[in-house]
């Protein structure tokens, strides 16, 4: 900030002291009524847009009683949707984890040309609409796509099958781990790793005993965010799934089907599981965030 913005004391300095004391008790905070008003506006806005929708999920889920709720989340189609959601997350998470560590290692510990371009490209999936994320795999693996005929001749199915769902999930969660690790590892520098090497550690020893413990909370943070998005993804998965009940429906897609069939209580019952996951995610995130912040401040 430059000096010109500060150098504008246009206020009359000869105001009576008593008036001043009455209207502004402390010069660096706002009057109590302004504070209360702003807190009220902020909480009101958040209640209307965040808390009420969240509460609505649970209320609607239990509207028809606990029996209906339980039946909705244990019927075979719901269970198969839950299984597929867990499977998609269980495959995409390790893939993006390995990628995130590799990308962070290369970017944070070494200098090379085009690093900024690489950073932008890693973030690219976040700025692509989920629908387009699904579309690109249809264009590659779909029947009319680049590999469509080859896949058909070899009796392989990617689109409207589980591999497509996994691919779409990998795409939308692609940057999460990498973007948490890169800034932290950049701040930590390479001194500790170099010391380990000088002391005779092998590459893997150095990585497992020095690098990994240093970044474990950031890694965890990335994995938590990645998992939440992987289990909740709707748009991208919807394009490649084909919506075959009991086979290619993930939880969000199952919710959509139930909702469109006017089975509202059942739709909200399955939705409440994902809302619960979201709350657990936020709680974990809150705990881990502080560890990451302390790791980062130690590194600086």
């Amino acid at each position, binding site marked *: 900030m430059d000096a010109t913005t500060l150098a504008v004391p246009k206020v009359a300095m000869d105001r009576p002291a008593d008036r001043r004391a009455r209207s502004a008790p402390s010069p660096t905070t706002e009057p109590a009524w302004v504070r209360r008003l702003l807190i009220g506006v902020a909480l009101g806005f958040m209640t209307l847009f965040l808390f009420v929708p969240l509460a609505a999920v649970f209320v609607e889920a239990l509207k028809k009683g606990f029996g209906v709720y339980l039946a909705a989340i244990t019927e075979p189609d719901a269970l198969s949707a839950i299984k597929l959601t867990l499977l998609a997350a269980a495959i995409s998470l390790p893939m993006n984890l390995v990628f995130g560590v590799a990308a962070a290692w290369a970017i944070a510990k070494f200098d090379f040309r085009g690093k900024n371009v690489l950073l932008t490209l890693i973030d690219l999936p976040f700025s692509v609409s989920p629908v387009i994320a699904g579309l690109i795999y249809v264009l590659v693996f779909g029947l009319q796509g680049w590999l469509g005929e080859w896949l058909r001749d070899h009796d392989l199915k990617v689109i409207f099958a589980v591999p497509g769902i996994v691919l779409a999930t990998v795409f939308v969660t692609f940057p999460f781990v990498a973007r948490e690790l890169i800034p932290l590892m950049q701040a930590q520098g390479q001194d500790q790793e170099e010391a380990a090497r000088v002391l005779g550690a092998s590459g893997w020893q150095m990585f497992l005993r020095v690098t990994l413990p240093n970044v474990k909370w950031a890694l965890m943070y990335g994995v938590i965010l990645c998992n939440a998005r992987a289990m909740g993804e709707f748009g991208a998965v919807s394009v490649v799934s084909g919506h075959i009940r009991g086979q290619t429906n993930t939880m969000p897609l199952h919710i*959509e089907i139930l909702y469109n069939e006017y089975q509202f209580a059942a739709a909200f019952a399955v939705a409440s599981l994902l809302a619960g996951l979201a709350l657990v995610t936020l709680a974990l995130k809150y705990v881990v965030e502080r560890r990451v912040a302390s790791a980062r401040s130690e590194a600086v």
Partner: protein
Amino acid sequence: MLPGFDLALGFTLTYLCLIVLIPLSAVFLKTFTLTWPNFWEAVTSPRVIASYRLTFGASLAAALINAVFGLIVAWVLVRYRFPGRRVVDALVDLPFALPTAVAGIALTALYASNGWIGRWLEPLGLKVAFTPLGVFVALTFIGLPFVVRTVQPVLEDVQRELEEVAATLGATRWQTIHRVLFPIVLPALVTGFALAFARALGEYGSVVFIAGNMPMISEITPLLIITKLEQYDYAGATAIAVVMLVASFALLLAINMLQTWARRRAGGV
């Protein structure tokens, strides 16, 4: 010199190409199968234009509302102490964590004419669910954390001495806020606005439930891509996708430039 550079970079580039770059290039290559007039017709037909208008308009309105209220939320969370502040702070990220389909059906249930909120708005002549207004509500929901989370750290870093200096120089509180604090926060606020806007443009899950999806009225562009795909009009779907991709990449570029600007301002005190 540390080991593993070739392996790490090699793996990173291979994975990036296989998962992101090659499939993404398919969108652009597919549109080359269209002639220019065909492409132009696909991306400028009245129904498509109506969807751009709704998507951009509602996204812009939602991002603006979020800029205003997000700034207030960030300010309140950083500056004031009140019971439950930490819980509220943690819940700001709810739209990031809550699956979009869940948000979509919850908002629809609330704003439907018999819903908790809808039943109060209906007598006022306000219909939200299944109208363009519903699209705006859903996009406001998903955009809030972007503004709060970009403004919050900047507000936390503001040196309180600046405000004290301004006060000693005789500035009123309002002058301090508007001439000292606001210029510091502005780059972050604009960045948060742009991020919320960019996210809203591509949003699908939370919108399709509440929008009603009537062609020409409440149909967003991402939905139009899916509709075309379901009609096996791959070229048409891809052409619209290219328009959206170009718009998002332009925004991404703008956001990067904004962040550079913000860093330079923060660094050049």
